[in-house]
């Protein structure tokens, strides 16, 4: 057992943190939901970071850690799927050209980055299909600018050329999707807590910073405990690539996010309702991920099959 990042992984983490610095603050005049940075995506591409999961010294764990770190930025980009799901799709050698960035269309619902994605991953229960966007239909992607989710959302109409995966490939891709989503949620939860800690340390009520009130301190501490647990389960699942671990990590992420989203908004009060505080950038990303890949109910059933069927 060794629960510390190895030297290569630490080096990646350091480099990611350095790269992230320039994206660490949202523009003062930004008052929207989807704060997307193409530069971020380009720099990750150029730095070769989308390949780290495939490098033995680093592996998926290092990728999950990078996702976790980058998810804490106010800027978003299609990072998680490229880092953890892309390498798996590459390995499967499918008869579909696999190109970054990716999107997930779960149960025909709007998908994140769906308007710009080059590879579309369709999920319907346990079924997984892949399609390339290099087909005429791509033009049909319908962006949803009024979405409250803090990602660029779009609907994709029926795409005819979906290549459906066999069961074992589908399970591998589902697992990678779940780990990627759990790692992203771990970062988002952490960022929501960090933002809230800053807010309550400054904002005063009855003459004291509200962060001094015990009721709030205890709740925020419980949130912090959940946040770390989500990160641990995501890391474990990234390391093992096990389907049960992946479902468990995403279940815990979605269950914990439910609690954390409510609490941080409660503590941030009216400030958290404004688009001038960054809180919604985290919470309205988390909300977009609450229902992904089965949601709590679906992930719990997947956990049941993977972890309890031998009992």
């Amino acid at each position, binding site marked *: 057992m060794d629960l510390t990042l190895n030297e290569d992984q630490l080096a990646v983490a350091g480099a990611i943190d350095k790269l992230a610095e320039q994206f660490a603050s949202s523009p003062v005049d930004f*008052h929207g939901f989807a704060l997307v940075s193409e530069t971020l995506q380009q720099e990750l591409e150029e730095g070769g970071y989308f390949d780290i999961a495939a490098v033995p010294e680093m592996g998926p764990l290092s990728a999950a850690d990078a996702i976790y770190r980058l998810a804490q930025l106010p800027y978003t980009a299609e990072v998680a799927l490229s880092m953890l799901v892309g390498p798996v799709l590459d390995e499967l050698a499918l008869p579909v050209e696999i190109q970054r960035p990716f999107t997930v269309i779960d*149960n025909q*619902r*709007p998908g994140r980055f769906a308007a710009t994605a080059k590879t579309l991953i369709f999920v319907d229960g346990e079924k997984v299909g892949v399609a390339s966007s290099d087909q005429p239909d791509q033009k049909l992607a319908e962006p*949803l*600018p*009024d*979405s*409250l*989710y803090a990602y660029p*959302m779009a609907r994709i109409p029926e795409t005819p050329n979906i290549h459906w995966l066999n069961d074992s490939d589908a399970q591998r891709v589902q697992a990678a999707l779940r780990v990627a989503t759990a790692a992203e949620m771990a970062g988002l939860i952490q960022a929501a807590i960090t933002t809230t800690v800053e807010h309550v340390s400054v904002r*005063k*009520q*009855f*003459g004291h910073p509200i962060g001094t009130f015990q*009721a709030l301190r205890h709740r925020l501490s419980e949130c912090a405990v959940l946040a770390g647990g989500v990160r641990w389960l995501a890391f474990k699942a990234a390391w093992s690539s096990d389907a049960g671990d992946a479902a468990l990590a995403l279940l815990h992420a*979605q269950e914990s996010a*439910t609690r954390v989203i*409510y609490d941080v*908004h*409660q503590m941030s*009060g*009216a400030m*958290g*309702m*404004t*688009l*001038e505080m960054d809180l*919604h950038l985290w919470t*309205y990303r988390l*909300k*977009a991920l*609450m*229902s992904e890949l089965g*949601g*709590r*109910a679906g992930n*719990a*059933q997947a956990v049941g099959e993977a972890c309890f069927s031998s009992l």
Partner: protein
Amino acid sequence: MDFNWTAQQQAFRETIRTVLAKHLPEDWEHVAHGPASKEQTAFAKQFCAALAEEGLLVPHWPKAWGGRDADPWEAFILAEEMWMAGEPRGGQYMNVNWIGPTLMLYGTDEQKEKHILPMARGETLWCQGFSEPESGSDLASLRTRANKHGDVYKINGQKIWTSYAGDADTCFCLARTSDGKNGISIFLIPMDTPGITVRDIPSIIGEGDIHEVFFDDVEVNQRWRLGEEGQAWEIVGRALSMERVGIPRFSLASKTLKDAIRLLKQANRFSAGVVEQAAKAHAACEAARWYSYQIIDQRAKNLTTGPEASVGRFSTVICERLVSEFVVEHVPEAISGVHPMLLAHHQRGIVAGIASGAAEIQLNIIATQFLELPREPR
């Protein structure tokens, strides 16, 4: 006890629904999206005038002021139906619920003449100048100053989170005329008075919903002070007691839950786990419903309502939370702009625990007055 509506109450509810059907436009779902969007506010003006003509704007007001002394049940049924319909009255619900009645109690003849009848006709929009940057629900730390020079007060300070300020005609404004809790006074200030600046705060709740209002040497004649100097604490307490139950949020939450269940059933996505979560949210809505009705029952019977009102309010916070979470988790496309009314509920629901009388304040009241726990050390 009788948990059923009387025939008369049911008929009244039907009347309201008929009137709503008559006056709400076809594309109402798209108008109703932001609680205080320009579109909604503009529509509210015409709608409230129509409602007044139908006798449904201020039925619970005294006859002298355009009402018919309807009982608290009818007032509440009206509030429920309006809220479920996406509150087409916009910000005028405040006039109806507490600003008008407060002026009736504390206003001078001149103040009443000028303000009450226009409210009863649905012609005016008010905003509420309570919160300030450094004092949320905590009136004692209010800092906006009103300094008297002869007959005129000069007001300086800043209000925040002010709903409807962008379009309001008049501000029900608190300002400090001297130090301490008893140094706060109320001023009825036309929003076009020189020195008032309004800034939109971009928000999740919707465009144009919340604002900052800056007062820069704003001159107000003492005729427009409501009550005596320093009487704000008492008057606001009285006004809040009229709002005891608050907005009947449980009714829209309950409707939203049912709408979401319908969508899930159509999509064949209403599985066992989803049913369980829906049932729990439904239970929370019903608990909030009976709590709220209990307060109305007491008011209708002229009984004093104690801290149970806070218990009822907090039960509404719980039900809003469960319904909002249910929708986001199971009908996520709702807040991607695919279902405008579900989006509108989301925007209204997220402020449940934060808006006037924040949840924490309610919990403090429950702890001290209802459970009678020892007070916190200060």
